[in-house]
């Protein structure tokens, strides 16, 4: 049960990153490697702030601000200095490695003893359960703490998703979507496409940083390498999501990204349960993403052949 709750919690945290990747990769067609750095930045800044005595909410907000700054830098390097998008993201991500190390002071920072959002949620949950440590769910024992943390992350995800969906229906949000879809058109309509890209990358990386900050609080530590491979995981969420839902409207696709993130983490949990080595996780991820990319094409082709056979026979 705790494996399932853990997978769900990590899945929801990944969904936050996934929404960020959706914004940069699908809305702006910008393959943004910055998120691997800003994920860690969010964790690092939030952790250092909490250890320095700041409240966890303020600390998490500071982490998000750090992510937004990183995204803005990538955006400026691309739009003002005319550096290729992928390269701009890689440069900033690389620079962030050193910056994050400086912020953390060492390559691993423990959050034990600090007041974290997850800790607060766990104690609130225990209070609401009347002091019980476990509850019965579907005939199994579930730790109250685990459930409370899951509820916290779910609440954050729902709030962020709602905010994003509302934002992309505003004039500014729609202009951002237009920028990614047809920059020539949007310039002819008076929008500064460079500004839109910078703003979009800032938002995207603020979400990545939020995911990192929550992950650090959930796991209880920040590690300098925790961002490695997060872009692939985020892309897996987005692409799996597009396979899982039908329809091309924004709200549908964002929900799809969330589902994709959950499915991805559940599949990993299953793989681990079946005895696969954690070291093989990266290979498993690659296989999943490949499968998600190939599946829609294969299914479509299979359907075509079936239709041809039916028409001929």
């Amino acid at each position: 049960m705790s494996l399932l709750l853990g997978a769900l919690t990590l899945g929801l945290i990944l969904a936050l990153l996934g929404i960020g990747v959706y914004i940069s990769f699908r809305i702006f067609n910008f393959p943004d490697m910055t998120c691997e750095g800003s994920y860690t930045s969010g964790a690092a800044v939030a952790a250092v702030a909490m250890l320095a005595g700041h409240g966890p909410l303020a600390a998490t907000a500071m982490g998000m601000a750090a992510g937004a700054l990183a995204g803005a830098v990538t955006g400026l390097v691309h739009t003002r200095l005319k550096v290729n998008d992928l390269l701009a993201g890689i440069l900033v991500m690389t620079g962030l490695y050193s910056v994050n190390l400086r912020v953390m002071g060492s390559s691993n920072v423990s959050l034990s003893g600090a007041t974290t959002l997850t800790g607060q949620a766990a104690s609130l949950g225990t209070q609401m359960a009347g002091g019980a440590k476990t509850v019965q769910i579907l005939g199994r024992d579930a730790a109250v703490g685990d459930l409370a943390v899951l509820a916290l992350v779910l609440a954050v995800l729902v709030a962020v998703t709602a905010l994003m969906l509302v934002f992309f229906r505003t004039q500014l949000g729609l202009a951002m979507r237009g920028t990614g879809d047809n920059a020539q058109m949007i310039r002819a309509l008076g929008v500064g496409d460079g500004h839109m890209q910078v703003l979009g990358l800032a938002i995207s990386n603020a979400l990545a940083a939020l995911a990192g900050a929550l992950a650090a609080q959930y796991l209880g530590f920040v590690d300098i390498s925790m961002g490695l491979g997060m872009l692939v995981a985020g892309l897996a969420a987005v692409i799996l999501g597009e396979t899982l839902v039908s329809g091309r409207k924004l709200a549908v696709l964002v929900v799809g990204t969330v589902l994709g993130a959950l499915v991805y983490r559940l599949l990993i949990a299953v793989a681990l349960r079946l005895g696969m080595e954690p070291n093989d996780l990266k290979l498993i991820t690659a296989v999943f993403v490949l499968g998600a990319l190939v599946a829609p094409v294969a299914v479509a082709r299979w359907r075509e052949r079936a239709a041809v056979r039916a028409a001929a026979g």
Partner: protein
Amino acid sequence: MLQIRDIHKTFHPDTPNEVRSLQGVTLDIEEGSFVIVLGTNGSGKSTLLNALAGSFYVDRGSIRLDEHELTRMPENGRARFIGRVFQNPFSGTAPNLTIAENLALASRRGQSRGLAMALGAAQRQQQHEAVARLGMGLEGRLDNLIGSLSGGQRQALTLLMATLVKPRLLLLDEHTAALDPKSADQVIRITAQVVARDRLTTLMVTHSMAQAVSLGDRLIMMHRGRVIADLSGAQKSRLRPDDLLARFEEVRRADLLDEAAAQMLAERFV
């Protein structure tokens, strides 16, 4: 109203690919006039429109729209005053957004965009009416993605988007060249309607003699980056496609003559 003074533009200067696209164009366009721009291939017609729109800055000269100095203004700044329809039907609309969303984007041309909702009920109603006036049956498909529409439909929508907020200058760059004849006719009909209804100052580049003759009150012919003919009023309205073809033939012969003369001079004196 639009003052173009001696503009020059050379692409890839000092390289083997150098193109002297505009070599001194000076024009005064009055408010409300509908100017047809004709020319041989490579004469600089599209470059002229792109220079006005701000796709690039001119090397020399100035562009002035009423009291606004446009010469060094970036493209999205000039968009406040200028509506554009491109030759490529894919350039003017966002394929992954709906018709309603595209129109909502167009309705804020020249205005700041904040956190107000982009699409309200009142706006939907206005959009419905505006699209219905196109006469293409698209008003029932406002929530369809643009990507599902044909080239003619997209150009009609681009035209609508360019004129939703009345522009001071409308730039049409061979906007029916990539369409089939039926769609082209439809789009031209809508163009004539919109320009007449709103009395828009328009510059239209075209390759079609038929369009050049039937539309507009002024005709400019370009060749090698310069304006070589400027007809308006009765001169313009009397034009027939044959007259235009004759002019093009003159230009071609003058070119050949230049070349023959240059060769002769080279043989004689060099």
